[in-house]
Each structure stands twice: as structure tokens, then as C-alpha cells.
């Protein structure tokens, strides 16, 4: 009688849910992906920053660091925010589908952020060069003066 009641209770209660497994797989993937992307992006962006700030190392590196921290904060926050899975994951198949949806979406978001950052670096470089050239133009008459 007791065993029967237990069986009934077990059936009535939520059956095996792979939600925790999904979370524990998703979290390391998302966090490592963020760290990898941010690390790669901002190790290579030092060159751009040095170019943008005309070789002033201090301000270039500190700006780079500030943007890196912001990038980490935004992406880690977003990764944690979309962790919640509302579907009940009864089988491994459903779990893998839900996981791939989450991880894929997050990877696409990271890629968009990466290209946005790259675009901003190129734009900053172009603008800083535009600011540099007018000064060079005003210098030219100064150098040509002795010839004429």
C-alpha cells in the first residue's frame, strides 16, 4: 500500500528534468566563450588603440582596458541573463535542442558584438587620421616657404 502510494506520488511529481544538467553545461560554455572572445579581441586591439591615440601608450592601454572591462560586463551579464530555460527537459534530445538554441544564439550575439567592436576600432582609426591630416596640411606652407 505504501509502495503504491509512493509510485503514485512519483508519477504526480515532476518527472526527471535535465534542467540542472543543461544549466551546468551551458554556464561553462558561455563563460569560456566570453573570456576567449574578449581576450582575443582586446589583445589584438592594443595596436588599433596605439594608432588611434598616435602612439601615446598610457592612454591607449588604459582605454583598451576600460573597454575590455565593459565588454566583459556586458557579455557576462547577457550570458547569465539568458540562462533561464522555461521548457521542461524530459529527454536528452529536448535538452540538447534547447542547449544548442541557447549556445548558438549566444555565439551569434558574441559575433555581432565582436564585429561591432572591430567596426568601432576602424572608425576610430579613420577619424583620428582625419584629425591628423589637417594639421599636416597647415605645416606644409611652413616648410615650402624657403623654396619660394
Amino acid at each position, binding site marked *: 500500500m505504501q509502495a503504491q502510494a509512493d509510485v503514485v506520488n512519483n508519477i504526480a511529481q515532476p518527472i526527471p*528534468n535535465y*534542467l*540542472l544538467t543543461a*544549466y*551546468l553545461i551551458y*554556464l561553462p560554455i558561455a563563460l569560456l566563450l566570453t573570456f576567449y572572445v574578449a581576450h582575443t579581441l582586446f589583445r589584438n586591439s592594443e595596436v588599433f588603440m596605439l594608432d588611434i591615440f598616435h602612439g601615446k601608450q598610457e592612454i591607449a592601454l588604459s582605454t583598451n582596458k*576600460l*573597454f575590455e*572591462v*565593459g565588454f*566583459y*560586463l*556586458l557579455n*557576462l*551579464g*547577457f*550570458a*547569465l*541573463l539568458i*540562462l*533561464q530555460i522555461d521548457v521542461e527537459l524530459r529527454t536528452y534530445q529536448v535538452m540538447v535542442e534547447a542547449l544548442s538554441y541557447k549556445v548558438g544564439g549566444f555565439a551569434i550575439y558574441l559575433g555581432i558584438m565582436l564585429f561591432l567592436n572591430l567596426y568601432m576600432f576602424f572608425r576610430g582609426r579613420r577619424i583620428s587620421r582625419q584629425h591628423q591630416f589637417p594639421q599636416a596640411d597647415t605645416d606644409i606652407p611652413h616648410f615650402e616657404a624657403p623654396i619660394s
Partner: protein
Amino acid sequence: MKDRLLADSINKLLLTGYYLLNLGYATLMIYTWQHVDTITELVSSISSRSAWIILSLGLMHFFNILVIYLLRRHRHNSSQSKT
């Protein structure tokens, strides 16, 4: 010298602001945290709570960078117009 004093005091104000935000958020969370029954709920609620604070810190961080940039440009422009 005056600039350095001003920068230091602004820095201190910003630091206090960040402390206040984080402590206030922590206290608020203690009041509004829902009942947690399982480890799954624990993981998801911790991650959503930290997600909001991390996201808001990130937005504040970029806002700060923007303000520093605007201040610098403003000063640059005004020093150019003076000369």
C-alpha cells in the same frame, strides 16, 4: 594641481556611487528573493540576479567612458577656441 584635486574628488564620488549601488542592490535582493527549493532554481535565480547587476554595472561603465570622452572633447574645444 587644481585639476588633480578635482579629478581625485570626482573619482572618490564615483567610487562611493558604485558602492552605494552595489550595497543597495544587495539589500534589495535580500528582501525580494523568491523561495528557492531546488538546486536548479538556485542556479537560475543566482544567475539572473547577478546578470542584472553585472549588466547595469556594464552600462554605467560605458556611460562613464562616454562622459570622460565628452568632457575631454569639451575641454579640447574650449582650449582651442581660446587660442
